């Protein structure tokens, strides 16, 4: 039986990890919601943002968080271009399947270019506060993990407000819920979808930066992330940002706690067990996500 202190520490670590998962998965669920696009390249963009943060820090000597000033607008623009230039040209009938292929190709391109530009050497941002931590009722909370969690909370809250309180948000949700109806009431769904896709990629810029604070990065790292992230958005209900966040927290916590009795190898399988269970029992997802019922 693990001690209370270890249990508490694991809960703290699990919640912090879950918060990071929520941020990393947010864009993925948006793409699917807006366009039925399975975006395999999302985690490649995360690693790209992480590399840009590392580069900013090691070349320019400024805090990696400041790289977001450039990467967030850059990724937003790239997202709009990607959607308008490539994905919106796919035939609707085969969109979901073809989007897997096309974004797979994009992921390979990003991985290759990262390897070409920065070599395969594994990098880590050397931060003065990289190992700093403080005491919270006997558990240690690492500053970098808390910053990542904070970034996740702020960006997900902003995303939520944007979706619920702004006209663009309404248009985006209308596009997600019923594209034809949205068009009938005068929403320019093409434009909205483009911006929505850009928004998803902008979350990747923030997520990648958060990831870079406390991880060693290398070009092929994205393959390790895409599986768990896909599992999170299915469990959360495809297309639901709030559902993905809830699923992310729960799975992060479960992974962290299961590691105590089962070890790292089996604890990782929690994502896939949850994925199979969801598909078998409740394919529309456990949290929100009425959308997926139609598929």
């Amino acid at each position: 039986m693990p001690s209370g202190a270890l249990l508490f520490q694991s809960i703290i670590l699990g919640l912090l990890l879950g918060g990071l998962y929520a941020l990393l998965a947010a864009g993925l669920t948006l793409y699917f919601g807006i366009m039925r696009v399975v975006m395999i390249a999302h985690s490649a963009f995360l690693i790209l943002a992480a590399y840009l943060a590392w580069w900013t820090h090691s070349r320019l000597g400024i805090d990696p968080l400041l790289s977001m000033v450039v990467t967030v607008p850059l990724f937003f623009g790239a997202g709009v271009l990607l959607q308008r230039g490539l994905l919106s040209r796919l035939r609707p009938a085969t969109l979901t399947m073809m989007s897997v292929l096309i974004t797979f190709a994009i992921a390979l391109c990003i991985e290759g270019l990262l390897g070409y530009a920065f070599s395969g050497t594994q990098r880590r941002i050397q931060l003065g506060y990289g190992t700093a931590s403080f005491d919270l009722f006997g558990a240690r909370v690492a500053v970098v993990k808390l910053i990542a969690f904070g970034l996740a909370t702020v960006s997900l809250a902003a995303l939520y407000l944007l979706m619920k309180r702004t006209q663009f948000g309404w248009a985006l949700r209308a596009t997600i819920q019923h594209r034809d109806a949205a068009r009938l009431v005068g929403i320019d769904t093409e434009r909205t979808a483009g911006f929505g896709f850009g928004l998803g990629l902008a979350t990747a810029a923030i997520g990648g930066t958060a990831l870079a604070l406390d991880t060693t990065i290398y070009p092929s790292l994205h393959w390790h992330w895409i599986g768990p992230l896909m599992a999170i958005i299915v469990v959360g209900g495809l297309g639901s940002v709030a559902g993905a966040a809830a699923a992310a927290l729960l799975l992060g916590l479960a992974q962290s706690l299961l590691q105590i009795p089962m070890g790292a190898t089996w604890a990782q399988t929690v994502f896939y067990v949850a994925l199979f269970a969801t598909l078998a029992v409740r394919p529309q997802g456990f949290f929100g996500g009425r959308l997926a019922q139609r598929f």
Partner: protein
Amino acid sequence: MRSPARRTSWALALSATLFLTACGGGDEGGEGKSSDDPIVVGISLPLTGDFSEPGKGVQEGYEAWAKITNDKGGLLGGRKIELKILDDQSNADRVVADYEQLIGSDQVDLVVGPFSTRLVVPSARVAQEYGMLFVEPAGAAAEVFNQGFKNLFYAAPAVADDHYNHLAEYLLALPADKKPKTVAYAAMDDPFAQGTAYGLKKKLEAGGVKTVVNEVYPPNTTDFGSIAAKIAAAKPDMVVGGSQYQDGVNLIVALQQLNYQPKLAAFSTAPTSPEFAKAIGNKTEGILSPTGYSQDAPYPSNKEFVEKFTAQFGKAPEEDQANGYTTGQVVAAAVEAAGCAEQGECQQKLIDWLHGNKVETVVGPLSWDATGKPQGAHMIQQWVGNDIKIVLPADAKEAELIYPKPAW
């Protein structure tokens, strides 16, 4: 229709040319050698594919060996070394075909090994069939040595299980009140990484040091918070990581974030990488690591190797380059001692000589048991200040081992 036809004729022309060139090469390598003929060394290396990074490193080591030896007048009184390197694309089928070609049709005088266990085992089998000596730079896993090869020699100081031998000896020789009492092990699920940690674990357990945590994690693990929490909660005197690179770095940082201060911390591979200090800055204090090669090691030929390699490639050699070079040194020592370098009876003379003798190399003196397993152990290095220094064994050390280690 025109274009495929044209392509076919090009392909025919090309293969005809290749065929002619191959035949030409074969003639040169035939019988009747004069003392001016080059010694042709056949090598297949993974220059593309999974192992391309280390494969290219080993290639540089071989090239440096050929150049340095030739600049000094070659072997056997004036015969120059000529390398014939093929790319096996990190593919085990391809590597077999490569060695068949090198030995059978190209009639090379000697062969040396490719990179990594997965390619060494099948290629050693080919060399065995032809009765060729097979010195290899990078097959350290146990399965290399239990195949019954009589012609194989691993040109490095030790296999994975023996990397920490010097450290185990040092710790077990400490007086009882100073000896670490509890140890936590975390190892990647990988034969090499796990081998290093478990080699030490076996020896320490036999010496009465208790194992309090024993974690294995898959290679794709990126979050080490929970593993670190488990280790920190058990408060062991010492932590041992059977690591490659990113896992070792992430685990060290995760332990530091939990404010865990062990008396001793040993991690394989990661701390010896040039990228390590850039990744975690001044948080390296006191970390131990076994290493098969150091540019600062005091072995006689090492200074020359580092100097000339740096002049040739514009950078200092790392372990892969050193392993290639060492392989060359071992073969050269056998050739000089046996007085021959060609296929046929000569090969058995080379093999017999290596079984009975010790060879001085850039990684220290090497000798082998009957299976070709080297009899040494790795040097142990420790991070002191902002530099990594050799602390064990006593005859190679640059600094004293600091134990208990300073806080990180």
